């Protein structure tokens, strides 16, 4: 299992598209937004930093999982099925790879906050920002893998882009929900992307993790995970 994880991560780090969209894009957006809107207000800058880090982590984890579609298409999964690797080991390796790849997206935006925007937080708050937001990637990593198992190689790219944009926009990562009708907040609170950013915003504000958030995240993991397991079994049984 460790071997597959290492193999996956090595391949992902090599992919140029990965680094541009999932690392550079959130970073540029953060620097752009915070220079334009957050000038002089450290609280706004820190808030934006968390939102953009969440966006990068969502993008990285979703696009990682969706690459699975191309692997299935070339017959890689059939090759893997001729090894002792169990379905559970495969799924854990895949989700873990997506999590690992999402980590630099978070860390780079945080680092940009410190270096360029002079975000100044206590070590405890930084630790919370890293740990909580990173764990918050779990549901989107599973969702990305679900797309990878449902889509064909051709449609995976489009599906993951729609999912990524939908989660980011509706989850309030790009626009403050307070500026939108109340119904948008209701929608956002049902999404894992909202809570991923909210875990970070809570850490900034010194609040404890929202119970509603933890429950919502857990529900996404369980439901998406069940679909992934079901789909993986179907996929294997096919042919």
């Amino acid at each position, binding site marked *: 299992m*460790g*071997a*597959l994880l290492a*193999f996956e991560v*090595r*391949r992902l780090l*090599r*992919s140029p598209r990965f680094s541009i969209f999932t690392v550079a894009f959130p970073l540029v957006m953060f620097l752009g937004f915070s220079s334009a809107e957050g000038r002089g207000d450290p609280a706004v800058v820190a808030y934006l930093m968390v939102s953009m880090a969440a966006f990068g982590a969502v993008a990285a984890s979703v696009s990682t999982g969706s690459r699975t579609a191309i*692997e299935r298409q*070339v*017959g*890689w999964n*059939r*090759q893997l*099925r*001729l*090894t*002792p*690797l169990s379905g559970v080991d495969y799924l854990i390796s895949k989700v873990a790879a997506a999590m690992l790849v999402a980590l630099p997206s978070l860390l780079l935006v945080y680092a940009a906050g410190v270096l360029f925007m002079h975000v100044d937080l206590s070590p405890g708050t930084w630790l919370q920002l890293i740990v909580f937001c990173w764990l918050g990637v779990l549901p989107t990593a599973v969702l990305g893998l679900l797309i990878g198992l449902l889509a064909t190689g051709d449609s995976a790219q489009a599906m993951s882009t729609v999912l990524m944009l939908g989660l980011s926009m509706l989850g309030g990562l790009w626009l403050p929900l307070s500026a939108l009708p109340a119904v948008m907040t209701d929608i956002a609170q049902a999404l894992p992307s909202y809570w991923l950013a909210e875990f970070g915003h809570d850490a900034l504000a010194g609040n404890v993790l929202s119970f509603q958030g933890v429950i919502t995240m857990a529900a996404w993991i369980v439901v998406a995970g069940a679909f992934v397991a079901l789909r993986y079994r179907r996929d294997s*049984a096919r*042919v």
Partner: protein
Amino acid sequence: MDSTDTVTRGAAVSLRGLVKHFGDVRAVDGVDVTIAPGEVVALLGPNGAGKSTTIDMLLGLAEPTQGAASVFGRAPREAVAAGLVGAMLQSGGLLDDATVSETVALFRAMYPKPLPLKETLQRAGLAELAGRKVGALSGGEKQRVRFAVALASNPDLLVLDEPTVAMDVEGRREFWAAMRSYTDTGRTVVFATHYLAEAEDYADRVVLLRSGRVVADGSVSQVRSLAAGRVITAKIPHADEGALALLPGVTSVLVRGDSTELACVDSDTALRELLDRHPQARDIEVRGAGLEAAFVTLTRQEAA
């Protein structure tokens, strides 16, 4: 003690009453084959004969509709998990963005008693290509990587589905030489092919499939003699395939350009009739049926 049972238990591969339906299509329709350890067996048949489906069931990739497959006395999935089986599938693919050695190393890492990496690469003729990305390889080289992946577990049974399909003549020869050196160590090999020459040259035994059934099973010479016939080749102006097939002694007809091939059970009678009805036939040749003729005769029975 029941002797068939003993054979089955000691067998490398045992397929018993194997049936696989896809909707109304009977892809495999009752296959019984027992393969002893150390045998090199060719599964021979035209496209759609059920070779790949049979192999899928033998590897546990597909569940039989009826019947059962076992490998070294175990369920296929168990044998695969134990690293007893290495396979090269037509539909199995590699990832272009990984290097050759990364790919082979990954598969090695999953097995309990893998072949050493260096030896695996050497046996597959990849020593010089180890650092190359899979996507940068030629079709034949990629096949060699898949062969290396199949060897990685140091398996007792190798299953190869059309292994040389993307290779040129030279590549094919090298591939079979590599295979030979592996089978000389007493491993069992099952390979599907539609290259008759490969079955003739490399298999101890040929299992001929047609429409999901075994139509012949034996040594190359046994299968050849099953067709028990000869082939008449001639240039016959205005050859009518249907009419020629009705000549006494003829089992099937193949028109290739201006030359016509008649597979015969009784070539003497067929030749007399042929000359009687087509006195203008020329360049007549009669030869003993090779495996190819046996193949044509045995796999075209219904059409003829």
